[in-house]
């Protein structure tokens, strides 16, 4: 069982959450100009990362808000939790932000602030691992 630290509610069991797939998949600027192949790739093609992976989660039986999580797909270590719309907070995210493909717009779906102190078991949700394995590397 993972303990996931919701930005609004604090640390809760994994069963309270739903997985939302890969984060930072931007909606195409001009969907009409895409070929069928490009559109299909936008809809269905996702990374299959071994190592740090940015993904979306929903606290479905709690505050019903979405947030992003940076999770190691090998160790399940949760490296960071950050708001929807924020760039990925590690080396991979900085590259994305510089090239302008990551959305940095504020997102209204996450308006909470710090975790309340009702949970005592939270692991540091905002810590960012400095060691980010490249795609396919073994951590």
């Amino acid at each position, binding site marked *: 069982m993972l303990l996931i630290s919701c930005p609004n*509610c604090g640390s809760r069991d994994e069963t*309270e959450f739903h997985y939302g797939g890969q984060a930072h998949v931007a909606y195409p600027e001009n969907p009409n100009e895409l070929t069928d192949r490009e559109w299909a790739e936008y809809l269905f093609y996702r990374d299959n990362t071994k190592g740090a992976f940015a993904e979306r989660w929903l606290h479905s039986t709690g505050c*019903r808000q979405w947030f992003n999580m940076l999770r190691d797909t090998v160790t399940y270590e949760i490296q960071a939790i950050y708001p929807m719309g924020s760039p990925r907070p590690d080396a991979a995210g900085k590259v994305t932000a510089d090239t302008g493909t990551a959305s940095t717009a504020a997102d209204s779906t996450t*308006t909470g602030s710090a975790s309340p102190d009702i949970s005592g078991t939270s692991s540091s949700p905002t810590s960012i691992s400095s060691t980010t394995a490249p795609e396919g590397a073994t951590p």
Partner: protein
Amino acid sequence: MAETAAPANSAQKNLSLRVSPAAPLGAAFEAGSVRGVVELREVPFLTMVGLRVNRNSGAGQRVASVTGGLPAGCGSVSGTGDTSVLWLGPEEFLVVAPTEAHESLGGDLIQALREALGGDAGQVVDLSANRTTFELSGPRARAVLEKGCSLDLHPSVLQAGTALSTEIGNIPAVLWKTGDESFRIFPRASFADFLGRWLLDAMREYASPEVP
């Protein structure tokens, strides 16, 4: 066709016909409660209103003046008198008020909330039939809940007056600690039977003498 006496008003007619979600378990709740140890009952037909509004907006402040405040964060409950507002999300709240506050019984709470919101962004939705209310109380109430709720319910962590949206017995429910040894649980109506039976099962061991 025989003459039938028409109800004096539609509210009386409704009252005679309505059945609360856990009504079929009423006798079982009575029999399964262990006096002075852990007791369970349904509090039927409370008025509940779903609110969606930004508490920092003008509409939020107008709504707050009707409810006696809007809670600021996870766990907190505000309200005035017998009307309480539970925090469900950053812009989502649940108003819990007595049965008589419902507009079908002449209450004006929901209408007042609608008027406070006005045309601004948000929602005021009558959710009175969405959930029912269980009251679980007694010195063993926490032990019963701990069998199926992963929150830390120890009094040093969970204070009276805290309400949290979580899972109990694997179903989503809102848990409100109303006193040192009393909880209100709000399951959705369709889960009321399941959760009622689950709680009865969890309570059963406390009817027997403790094994040393």
